């Protein structure tokens, strides 16, 4: 990471302000304005539209291995997503994924 201290504070301040305004948007407005249905339909998909794209390159070519394919990380990622989808339990999935990663690394390392 290579940011100046003011840059870091700027990021924190802007994310905080922007997030607050998003939350405040409708709760804060007086009156009964409602979002059009087509906007709601798109907003519903924001987390699943951003997070998988963010995570894909990290799994396929991790920085820690110089951008090379890494079997332990791939398997750990697969185990995590499977556990998360099966059990709908975030902590269980994190724990299972991390255990898989450490196990694979000690076996192959």
């Amino acid at each position, binding site marked *: 990471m290579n940011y100046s201290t003011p840059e870091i504070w700027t990021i924190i301040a802007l994310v905080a302000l922007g997030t607050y305004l998003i939350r405040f948007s409708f709760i804060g407005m007086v009156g009964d304005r409602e979002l059009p249905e087509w906007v709601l339909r798109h907003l519903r998909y924001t987390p699943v539209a*951003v997070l998988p794209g963010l995570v894909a390159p990290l799994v396929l070519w991790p920085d820690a291995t110089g951008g090379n394919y890494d079997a332990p990380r791939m398997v750990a990622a697969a185990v995590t997503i499977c556990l998360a989808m099966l059990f709908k339990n975030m902590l269980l999935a994190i724990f299972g994924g991390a255990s898989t990663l450490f196990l694979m690394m000690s076996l192959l390392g």
Partner: protein
Amino acid sequence: MTTTKRAFLHGIRDGMPFILVVFPFAMLFGVVATETGLSTIQTFIFSIAVIAGAAQFAAIQLMADNAPVLIVVATALAVNLRMAMYSASIAPYLRGVPFWKRAAMSYILVDQNYALGLTKFETEPKMSGSERVAYFTGSMTVNMPLWYSGTLVGALVGSRIPPEYALDFAVPITFLALVGPMLKTAAHVMAALTSIVMALLLGFVPYDLGLILAAVAAMIVGAQVELMVKGRAT
């Protein structure tokens, strides 16, 4: 006991299960943020000012890549855009509530109490505005301090964890664990797949803008698949 007080206590009770998730998740953020290079105080303030785990992790990941400041902010806010939807669906229940209370409610609106609040308000339509505020506040009364303190503990511990523990992979694992339960419908799955494919294809686009373009495409695909599935059902 007044009905408002009772609503507050019910909020605390219903928020309890989240304790198990909030503290470790906050700790993980503290660890990852300080490993990435934020100071303890920056990490701590980040959690207090934003209270949105996924967006905070997204920001940290892009900061680790040295993405431009505006891209970091835009991506984190994109993750939080869903809260506009939460805000819109909670707002009708807070009609007549004083402005300053609605301003305070906006600060503590997160995934968990949105789901709790909406269910509660729908099933008990006779609740008064102040009871709803009390319930909503109660649901975060224990969780919010835990989010702050967990971050602080993680930040203090983080600087002492040696690199061989593969903490680089804490963020991907966290995101995958977050996304898994969200893949409820075909539309969600298609949006996620579009996001992955487009983000990889657009990896060449400078300033990490590819991710935002991929997210826009994925939202459109999600919305369109939803329409198609609905069209078939009717």
